[in-house]
């Protein structure tokens, strides 16, 4: 207790000195403050990436390379995962709907779950695992081998050269890959419901067409854009801030994948809440 503590109140309750209060507050709010600080640094990186987007020179090649890597490179895995996600959703849907003898609704079930949830979330997670980890590793090893310092000696801003293309390419490619996921997912659903379970194609299609709204796809694509930003930021931030050696690069890669995956799932929840406000009739 400090000597300068104020006079004791008559209640007899235990009195804390300001220093103690500070320490206690630090214990409770310290981790929270850390999280806020890291969030703030991510946002700063995002702002810097965007301000550099409009400054010369525009290195088209870097953007195309990243789009090729994030998009075309992820095509096989997205198609594989998309097909089985659609098939599994159809399978589970049919099992549940069979209780009411309403299997034809599987068209709606598969369509809407893919459009709103499965396609954007799984695409983001898959691309995080594949491209996000690679980004963090690449930037991290560029950092430890002084390649990022070398850029600055040629008056090239590393954020301009390395981060902006990756963020922009992610924003552009995640929605595209999400749509690929949707299409392949529907194909998976088709194989299970029509070919395996012999449900009437006309009815399935009719219910899909009638109940699945373009707004469902719009919602999914908005999510994909935001997931793209989250993924690219987490990967670039972690890679960019590596200090030390090869071990740190590995740690940064793990951190990038974990923080990106977690933020995708958390963002997903809040985005649903926001979208339910924007499109109330589509809230479940």
């Amino acid at each position: 207790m400090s000597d300068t503590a104020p006079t004791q109140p008559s209640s007899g309750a235990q009195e804390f000195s300001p220093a103690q209060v500070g320490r206690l507050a630090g214990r409770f709010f310290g981790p929270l403050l850390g999280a806020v600080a890291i969030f703030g640094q991510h946002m700063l990186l995002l702002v810097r990436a965007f301000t550099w987007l409009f400054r010369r020179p525009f290195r088209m090649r870097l953007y195309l390379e990243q789009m090729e890597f994030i998009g075309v490179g992820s095509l096989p895995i997205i198609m594989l995962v998309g097909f089985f996600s659609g098939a599994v959703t159809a399978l589970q849907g049919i099992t549940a709907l069979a209780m009411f003898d309403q299997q034809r609704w599987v068209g709606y079930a598969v369509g809407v779950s893919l459009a709103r949830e499965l396609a954007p979330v799984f695409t983001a997670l898959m691309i995080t695992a594949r491209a996000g980890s690679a980004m963090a590793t690449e930037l991290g090893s560029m950092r430890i081998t002084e390649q990022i310092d070398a850029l600055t000696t040629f008056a090239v801003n590393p954020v301009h050269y390395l981060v902006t293309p990756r963020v922009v390419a992610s924003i552009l490619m995640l929605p595209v890959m999400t749509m690929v996921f949707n299409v392949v997912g529907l194909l998976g659903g088709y194989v299970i419901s029509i070919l395996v379970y012999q449900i009437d194609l006309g009815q399935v299609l009719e219910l899909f067409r009638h109940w699945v709204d373009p707004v469902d796809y719009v919602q999914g694509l908005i999510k994909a854009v935001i997931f793209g930003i989250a993924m690219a930021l987490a990967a670039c931030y972690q890679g960019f801030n590596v200090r030390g050696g090869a071990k740190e690069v590995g740690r940064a890669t793990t951190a990038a994948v974990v923080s990106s995956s977690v933020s995708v799932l958390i963002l997903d929840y809040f985005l649903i809440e926001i979208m339910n406000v924007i499109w109330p009739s589509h809230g479940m």
Partner: protein
Amino acid sequence: MTNGIGTRDERWQIQIRGLCKSFGAQQVLRGVDLDFERGKTNIVIGGSGQGKSVLMKHLMGLLQPDSGHIYVDGEDIVGLDEVAIAKVQRKFGMVFQYAALFDSLNVVENIAFPLIERYRLPKSEILERVRDLLRRLDLDNVPGVEEKFPAELSGGMRKRVGLARALVDRPQILLYDEPTTGLDPIATKNVDEMIRRTADDFGVTSVVISHDMASTFRIGDRVAMLYDGTIIACGTPAELLAAPDPRLREFVEPSGAVKFGVSS
């Protein structure tokens, strides 16, 4: 040393005055005064963590000091804006410890990088300048070297490609960051020779950060020792050996590279 600061000095190309830099509570540079001679090989020696790399980064404007001045050809580069710094940086070429070549670019693209980023030159001219350097640095006798990626090159070749990249924009000053660290004695000798030859052939001022004593006294025209954030000894190798500072002696003698008291 001269005080003719503010105008271009014929002898001293870089003049550092009272340079201080702290990172948090840790004071790395505590008032460095140091001059680098035009066209000569200037070496800064010092133990690990004595601020050598920090000093080097200040020269290129990658770090801003807390106080002090750095004059390059009489122009104070401290506190310049981004555009002016970029202009000063063109006078410098930096050779990194492990070359720091861009993994995603091949040899030609690596060497051409400064030209592509800084100017709009026709492709043919860029290629011509790159090939000229490959020839002058004896890199052209390796078949298909132009298309090779850094991962396919040996350590020594990587170093020369890094040197070519630093030289391509015809800098006046070349900075070497611990060029011989981690090399065997023969490779070290080759690098020494490379530094000497480059200084002669290209007429550049070389600034070498090193803790390799043998090399330092072999190739240095001027040697300065950075100790605890200040320069404790500075002069030609012969001057340093004739009147050694005890801290310099302590640092140099264990290497067995030179003997004190006799001028080399």
